[in-house]
């Protein structure tokens, strides 16, 4: 019994200070994906890489826009989007305090204008992606 007492006393207090103190996640933690819309061209590669469908998009051909959506409710924090994004626009941060009262607060939405073909007029890709391809003279290769 005294060995147990000695063990307990020597362990001391180990309780974390959270939430009074900060308890940041370590470097390299797979936390909330953050999107840099300066770099993002709306190319939707992330949506094709996402295994759970947390990233989705919809092309509205009447209004000529692509609506992109990331829902943290379905995110697995696997980092497939970060790995596949050709422009480094989506990165996993160290933020983890994501509890929310409703699902809408867990989403990030973006609207991109679609560019149309100069021959047939059909919308085919976002304007940002088209401009980038023209400027760099390359398709989206990694």
């Amino acid at each position: 019994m005294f060995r147990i007492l000695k063990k307990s006393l020597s362990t001391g207090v180990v309780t974390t200070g959270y939430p009074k103190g900060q308890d940041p996640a370590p470097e390299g933690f797979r936390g909330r994906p953050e999107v840099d819309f300066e770099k993002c061209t709306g190319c939707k590669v992330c949506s094709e890489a996402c295994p759970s469908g947390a990233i989705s998009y919809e092309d509205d051909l009447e209004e000529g826009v692509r609506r992109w959506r990331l829902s943290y409710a379905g995110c697995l924090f696997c980092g497939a989007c970060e790995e596949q994004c050709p422009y480094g626009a989506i990165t996993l941060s160290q933020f983890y305090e994501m509890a929310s009262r409703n699902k809408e607060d867990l989403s990030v939405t973006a609207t991109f204008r679609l560019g149309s073909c100069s021959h047939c007029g059909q919308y085919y890709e976002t304007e940002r992606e088209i401009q980038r391809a023209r400027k760099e003279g390359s398709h989206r290769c990694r």
Partner: protein
Amino acid sequence: MKPNGRFSAPEKKVPIVAARSGWQPLVPLHNPLSMVKAHKSCASTIDNGSQTMDREMIKLQRVEQNLEAIEKSLEELGARLSERIGKIFGRSLHIREVDSGSCNACEWEITALSNPVYDLERFGIYFVASPRHADVLLVTGPVTRNLQTALLKTYEATPEPKLVIAVGACACSGGLFHEGYASAGGVDKVLPVDIYIPGCPPRPQAILQGLLLAMDKMDQKMRKQEFAEES
């Protein structure tokens, strides 16, 4: 949101905590005031100016005024009760955990909350053995077909007021499994959810934040983000 399946909720009295939990009863309630108003409008169409009709109309008007006063005081009472419940929940929370098909990572993180490092009990939060003793149902997993009935029965056994917290990507939205032949696609397809805690699995600190949010002891840090290209 209503529970799906062949399970039906019992007849409810005036839903005092409806606003807090977003619960809508399956069976429409009889609202005495609206019945009286309907009766009045029906009576006024057949009003032929007789004394009997006039007395009837005066009686109906008095009943209507009384009911309006009762309804107003019930609303005030409801608001005060909600605040009181928030204060009670803010003192302690008794949790019944239900695994509806998770991969068990979320379970182990919830279990980790009882270890000496996170020590959940210092907040007055306890895990209870029976849903009859619970304030909160902590649900993990995408709600499998085989467990759906047990989950609904557990929900029904939990007395009001109660909250439902969905922990993990599978519970929040079905995760990888979505809606499939054996998966309902998330807890909100089956029960009304009050708090979502995303993660795969969420860190114990993240689950703790969610529980403290339920007790109104912490603030929500997530807000919807929108971006639109300028035309």
